[in-house]
């Protein structure tokens, strides 16, 4: 399953909290024209670097599917960042 929601949170020194929720699938749909343009570019890159395009697509897919559950929290004093992939 590809990631559904990416959360980026930030806590500033003045204690203001901001959270950005990125729904992956709708964003991908919006960006799909750009992704269509990126496909031939990726294909050419694979051919130039002699990488199997099928293997590259499979590997990228596996990497994307493995991402849900990733959570990174960094706190420094009163500043904090959170990146969460669900």
């Amino acid at each position, binding site marked *: 399953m590809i990631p559904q929601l990416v959360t980026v949170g930030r806590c500033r*020194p003045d204690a203001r909290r901001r959270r950005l929720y990125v729904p992956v699938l709708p964003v991908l749909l919006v960006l799909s024209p750009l992704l269509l343009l990126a496909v031939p570019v990726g294909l050419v890159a694979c051919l130039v670097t002699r*990488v199997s395009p099928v293997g590259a697509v499979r*590997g990228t897919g*596996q990497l994307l*599917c493995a991402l849900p559950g990733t959570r*990174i929290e960094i706190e420094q*004093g009163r500043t904090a960042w959170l990146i969460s992939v669900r």
Partner: protein
Amino acid sequence: MNEQRRKILDLLANGKITADEAERLIGALERERSESPQTAAPRPKPRPKYLRVVVNAADGPGADGASRVDVQIPLQLPRAGVRLASLVPPQALARINAGLSRSGVPIDLAELKPQHIEEFIEQLDDVTVDVDDPDGQVRVFCE
């Protein structure tokens, strides 16, 4: 099916006890079995799903507060990463290996295969690394 349970079912089949009584007796048997762990088969340990790295650093001089880093990554991620890395062309791998050697890390990435990372992750399940220092603490573990 064990002998006692079979006897209860025989009694039920012969009409010597009612279904309710049979249920109570089987329930009592199961409770007894769960209370005696030496007879019960050991439960398999749940497989860890995540690799966690937690770093806590105390407030140093000149710093604006204590630092904390908490990273949780699914164990599937390194597996997928190694599979993707296996697509790297040999000439690029040679350059990376040369760079690693120059940096004092003589690792041949061409020898890194998905099955190796599988074995590594299998063994990683039981690994816990604790580094305690007056100024901080580092914990690496799987959960």
